[in-house]
């Protein structure tokens, strides 16, 4: 891996952690976008590791307090999103257009991955408070809806422009 790529990954990692810890409305976050983007551009493992690292740091330093038993679930959830970025890139192949269809694809994928993340973290909540998983899902559904809508919007609007910018930074050819 060349220096430029390492520098960009480091910037993305600090941006990701910073954005996760910054004050923001509950469940509106750009962490999943950055992890997915990292996985997409630098491989599934990089995305998964960044997701795990971000949630590990956030688990201790979050303005909402120490995450406790939910932290491992957050780590797994965000790692899944980062990993999915790499898998998606593999599915797309090297040459792909960045038309409305791909924007829609990313938005739909964001919706699905966000739900997976919410199910995983709600599972942690269910264990912590000893409640049924279905009850935990029902109780937190409005948070999940906000999370889903914000991620759909963010992925649909920002994913491809950011990919283009980062590809230019690392000197990779953009095929759109």
């Amino acid at each position, binding site marked *: 891996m060349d220096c430029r790529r390492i520098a960009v990954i480091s910037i993305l990692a600090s941006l990701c952690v910073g954005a996760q810890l910054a004050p923001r409305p509950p469940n509106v976050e750009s962490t999943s976008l950055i992890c997915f983007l990292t996985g997409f551009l630098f491989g599934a493992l990089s995305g998964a590791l960044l997701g795990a690292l971000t949630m590990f740091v956030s688990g201790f330093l979050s303005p909402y307090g120490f995450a406790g038993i939910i932290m491992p679930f957050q780590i797994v959830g965000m790692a899944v999103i980062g990993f999915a970025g790499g898998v998606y890139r593999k599915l797309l192949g090297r040459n792909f257009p960045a038309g409305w*269809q791909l924007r829609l694809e990313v938005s*739909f994928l964001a*919706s699905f991955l966000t*739900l997976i993340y919410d199910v995983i973290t709600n599972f942690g909540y269910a264990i912590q408070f000893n409640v049924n998983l279905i009850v935990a899902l029902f109780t937190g*559904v*409005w948070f999940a809806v906000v999370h*889903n809508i914000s991620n759909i919007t963010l992925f649909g609007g920002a994913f491809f422009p950011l990919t283009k910018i980062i590809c230019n930074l690392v000197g990779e050819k953009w095929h759109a």
Partner: protein
Amino acid sequence: MHKRTLVIFCLGWLASLILAGCVAGYYYMNFQNLNQILEKYKGCVMRFNICIDYKEWNGTVVWYNDTIVPFGCNLLEATEKVATVNSTYWPAYQASFVNAINGVWKDNSYFWMWYRWINDRWEYGPCGADLYILSDGEILMWRYEIPNYF
């Protein structure tokens, strides 16, 4: 359409359906909880229907059906459950006089009068609203009007 696109779209729709199901579940759970509470206090509450008639003010009539209040509640307290009421207590009559309901104030000729639905017709209330204790299933009305005894 590419197979990949189709699969991703299906996953997205599946996520939306699951979320919609969870929203429905959330409301169903709340409904069940409230029903349980209602069942618990069944012997302590009653239901009544109340109408607020603003016809003389802006032509509207608003009904509040199946309003739940505790047993022994008087009409003034019950009205305060469904509307913003301004009233003055008159010690001389040992009763309250309603000045305004939902911001519609009495004036020199118009007042808030209350009625009971008895024998298929409206009858004037026999006393002040705070002296009248409601019965289960009763139908009542507040009307903004020039009282017919004027």
